[in-house]
């Protein structure tokens, strides 16, 4: 009986390193990480089976990432491309990220060349289709999206070795999309659901983002941030990590104008510490603490009465 060295495949592909980095860089997302580990293990095993001649066809690798905005779907897609590349399932490992506009044309005969162009660009790598359900518009039977779906399906089936397609979007809409396009659903092997982040995970993410931007929170700011997240989660249009990023961008603006005023007033010269420390005031100035959009809407409706 021939034996095969799984460890060898693992070290050759350096896959452990990518997975560990995924663990370190991404906060939370435990079920997603678990699924990715499973997929990676499956790929390593099927590579080994291939070497022994037990398996001839390459496994289907198309995936579907569902979850609310800002839960890390694009980030994970990038890592997935790297994992697939290291294991030799895609030759180049680049990610081409598109939406409906990049695939669907404006007039008859425009869609097919446009879709093919995108598919050709993605060959050898991963095609990431964000909000894929917009491709299918049931209310308009002459919508060109259907044509794009058909070409996509054909290539997903015939050029399985050449590219991996990852669809992404909200869970409920994606499910509806699959119901009306059963061909698509059956060609996708891996469905991964991205859960929302908890409050403590978001605080951790905020900390990571701030240090990646070479800023730091002082103690008050850290507490304010935790409270901010608490408030923000209950308000409409909350987009997980993306909302945190936006909040930090606005805090940086307020920080900049505060430091600028300090220096312009000529009272003191800002130090390196001043330039990189976000204080409690920078965060507390957010309208989220006054109820944010909700409060404004309420105020508006009261004004109407």
């Amino acid at each position, binding site marked *: 009986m021939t034996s095969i060295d799984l460890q060898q495949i693992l070290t050759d592909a350096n896959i452990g390193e990518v997975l560990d980095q995924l663990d370190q860089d991404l906060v939370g997302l435990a079920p997603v990480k678990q699924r990715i580990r499973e997929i990676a293990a499956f790929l390593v095993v099927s590579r080994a089976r291939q070497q022994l001649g037990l398996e001839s066809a390459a496994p289907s690798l198309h995936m579907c990432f569902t979850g609310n905005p800002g839960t890390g779907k694009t980030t994970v897609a990038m890592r997935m491309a790297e994992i697939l590349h290291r294991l030799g399932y895609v*030759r*180049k490992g*680049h990610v081409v990220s598109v939406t409906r506009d990049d695939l669907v044309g404006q007039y008859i005969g425009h869609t097919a*060349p446009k879709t*093919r162009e995108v*598919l*050709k*660009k993605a*060959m*050898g*790598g991963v095609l990431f289709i964000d909000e894929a359900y917009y491709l299918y518009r049931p209310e308009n039977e002459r919508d060109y999206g259907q044509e794009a779906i058909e070409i996509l399906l054909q*290539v997903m089936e015939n*050029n399985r*070795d*050449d*590219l991996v397609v990852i669809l992404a979007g909200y869970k409920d809409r994606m499910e509806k999309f699959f119901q009306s396009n059963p061909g698509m659903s059956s060609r996708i092997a891996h469905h991964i659901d991205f859960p929302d982040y908890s409050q403590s995970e978001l605080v951790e993410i905020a900390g990571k983002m701030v240090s990646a931007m070479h800023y730091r929170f002082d103690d008050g700011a850290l507490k304010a941030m935790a409270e901010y997240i608490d408030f923000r989660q209950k308000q409409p249009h909350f987009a997980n990590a993306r909302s945190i990023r936006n909040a930090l961008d606005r805090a940086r603006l307020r920080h900049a104008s505060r430091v600028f005023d300090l220096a312009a007033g000529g009272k003191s010269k800002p130090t390196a510490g001043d330039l990189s420390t976000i204080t409690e005031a920078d965060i507390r100035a957010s309208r989220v603490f006054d109820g944010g959009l909700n409060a404004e809407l309420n105020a508006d409706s009261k004004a109407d009465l």
Partner: protein
Amino acid sequence: MHITQGQFSFLPPLTDAEIRAQVDYAISRGWAVAIEWTDDPHPRNVYWHMWGAPMFEIKDGAAALFELQACRKACPNTYIKVNAFDNTRGVESAVMSFIVNRPVMEPGFGLIRQEAAGRTIRYTTRPYATERSGGYSND
């Protein structure tokens, strides 16, 4: 008559894997790959039909093979070649060109004699393939 034009034409026909490897090389050098086809194999025929636009943004040879497959399906019994264009300043010309598809029957060339002033004879060649409109591609 086996037409010998461009690279590799004295070799047995390239397999798809070999074509992809050649295209991958072209991509690695930053050249734009294009596919062209014709029914007129005259060596002076430089105007082959373009199969779509040249591929500027592809990252992998599979994309060129994808187009080649489509071209073969649409024009199965014609000559198809793959070109690679180098846009480096000072080069700016096709740097690779090889035939990847041939008609089942390659009828060859006829020699045409034209009697000119005195007893001069002018010679020229004409591909038999062009005697019928559309060549032999519909056979």
